[in-house]
């Protein structure tokens, strides 16, 4: 199936990401294999071997070197893409800070996978949520189509504010599941994404440098600048999404309210759990139960205003976290509590650690959580789901 805007293909989430990367025309794409990200790297090398992807692919010895190469390439003024998962993301940690500090607008896909030890390969968002203070913009995607659209939008956002972006989707549920995906035509993506031409770059004709030691005042000012850029992200991301919607007919919002009107309880979650929660909401609405879903797509910066607006007048919120910060709880639960703190008529917020380690969470189970919510402690601690 195709029309003048796209061709429909049967793709996994990872191959949808590879298509997005190809369509964005990065000039440098370093990569390192790691389950369950590897199909992204392999697809890109396949595109390149077929002459369909005109990028310098670098295959260093570690994700750490991948990110080091990404930053330097971005500083030289070219568009850069990479992808990772789990341990690879953690190995990059030092350089994630460095990339954000260098204002290098790299786009990185991440496949959310448990972090060792013990070893496991299952969907769990702790890997990327542990990077929340590195200065990267973070999106979480629910489906292959959304991952494709978000990676393309991510370049627009990153290059507008000069802040790197990571786009995460869950291991296997999204990364390896096949779905029909509308792959936009190149001309349409080119219209959305102009060539990257940063004003400052490492260039022998310009003789500008990056990384010299700075004094306290300069460092302080630099952090404030990053903060100002971050503050612009919710509106820049929303605008990019609107423009994309105008071109493709698909928009996702920075948050999505799904059947929230008149809801007594709203489920708040991220990633593939949203798809399951959607089914639960449909079933409960069918049974006359007033339940809705609030999907958080832009997680960093947390769109506090949008979250407050979306939850105004909602009596009960149930946060489902497929991640765990020991000693802290569910990361989204804790962040949402902070985001809504002091709000007039703030909803009662309960947090469930649901699906941590990749444990299956069915729509039926989510409906049970909502029905039994009164029995869950609404205090500051997140509660382990049964």
């Amino acid at each position, binding site marked *: 199936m195709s029309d003048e805007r796209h061709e429909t293909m049967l793709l996994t989430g990872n191959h949808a990401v590879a298509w997005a990367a190809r369509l964005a025309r990065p000039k*440098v794409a370093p990569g390192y294999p790691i389950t369950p990200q590897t199909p992204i790297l392999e697809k890109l090398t396949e595109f390149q071997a077929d002459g369909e992807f005109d990028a310098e692919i*670098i295959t260093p010895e570690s994700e750490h070197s991948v990110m080091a190469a990404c930053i*330097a390439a971005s500083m030289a003024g070219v568009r850069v893409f990479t992808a990772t998962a789990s341990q690879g993301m953690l190995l990059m940690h030092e350089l994630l800070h460095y990339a954000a500090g260098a204002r290098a607008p790299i786009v990185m896909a991440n496949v959310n996978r448990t972090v060792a030890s013990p070893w496991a390969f299952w969907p769990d968002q702790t890997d990327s949520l542990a990077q929340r203070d590195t200065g990267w913009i973070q999106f979480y995607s629910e489906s292959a189509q959304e991952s494709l659209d978000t990676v393309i939008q991510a370049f627009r956002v990153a290059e507008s504010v000069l802040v790197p972006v990571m786009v995460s989707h869950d291991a296997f549920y999204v990364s390896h599941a096949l779905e029909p995906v509308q792959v936009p035509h190149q001309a349409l993506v080119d219209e959305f994404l102009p060539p990257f031409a940063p004003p400052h770059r490492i260039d*022998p004709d310009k003789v500008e440098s990056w990384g010299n030691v700075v004094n306290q005042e300069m460092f302080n000012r630099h952090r404030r600048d990053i903060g100002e850029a971050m503050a612009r992200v919710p509106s820049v991301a929303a605008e990019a999404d609107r423009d994309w919607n105008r071109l493709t007919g698909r928009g996702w919002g920075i948050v999505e309210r799904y059947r929230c009107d008149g809801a007594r309880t709203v489920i708040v979650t991220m990633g593939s759990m949203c798809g399951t929660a959607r089914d639960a909401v449909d079933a409960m609405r069918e049974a006359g139960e007033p339940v809705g879903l609030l999907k958080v797509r832009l997680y960093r910066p947390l769109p506090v205003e949008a979250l407050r607006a979306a939850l105004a007048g909602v009596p009960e919120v149930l946060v489902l976290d497929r991640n765990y910060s020991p000693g802290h709880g569910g990361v989204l639960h804790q962040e949402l509590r902070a985001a809504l703190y002091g709000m007039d008529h703030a909803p009662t917020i309960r947090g469930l650690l649901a699906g941590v380690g990749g444990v299956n969470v069915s729509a039926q189970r989510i409906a049970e959580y909502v029905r039994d919510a009164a029995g869950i402690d609404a205090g500051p601690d997140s509660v382990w789901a049964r």
Partner: protein
Amino acid sequence: MKMMDLVEEQMFCSGHAACPGCIEALSVRHVLAALGPDTVAVVPPSCMAIIAGPQPFSSLRIPVYQPTLEASAASASGLRRALDAQGKRDTQVVVLAGDGGTYDIGFQCLSSAAERNEDFLYVCLDNEGYMNTGAQKSSSTPRYAKTGSTPAGKTSRKKNLTEIMAAHGVPYVATATAGFLPDLVRKVQKARAIRGTRILTLLIPCLDGWGLPDDGGLRAARYAVESGVFPLYEVGDGCRYTLNHASRTRPVADYLALQRRYRHLGQDDIARLQADVDEGWTRLMRRVAASEDELAASC
């Protein structure tokens, strides 16, 4: 004495932040002059990063990218590929890293870049320790040398970076030192004309870290070569060995006597170090001879 005829393009400025008498500043001045203005430098945390100057100053007339300590070769790879993608294939990418950033924490990504034969010149400014943090041991620190983290003297020997990198089969690996300046300049010019990974290890006697007088750096560099402690040689494609200073004209003891870091050594220690150097020299001579044999059969 014959004066050296240097045609020098001023790429390195006065007013830099090196210690008075620093051999690293002198060496880098000539490395950069030989490379010229169409060059970008990658300088990880090291003495060289200090010499390059704090924001907003720069002592180098070329762009400098300062990556994290362990990521020089990976960063140079990214920079190289981005320049290539922009059609700037003739722009030189040069890494100016210390021995800690090369032999130790940056070694993994250097090995990987060499395996991919990335097109850059990697210059290891080898002062045999973490001198920028006040002289602690690195894996380049020689046996028995006293450092801030080996107060009784280091017990293990120095890692042989040149042989390890030559074993990667990269097009060009060489040693050089400002104590033999024409040789150093020739090697930079030679490396400049080659594509692929080129690795130059420059011995940089550190006045403070080794315990040398302010005017003692070049003497130490010359003694290092003349005693065979630091042989000057080149390896092409991992197999073609060329010795650039063929004779050993002094005992190792002469070299050791110049430096405070060896002042605690007894005669047995000195004999042991002489034996280490003799053994290394013999091994190198065998490689040079074998390479001459193989050259006939084209290695």
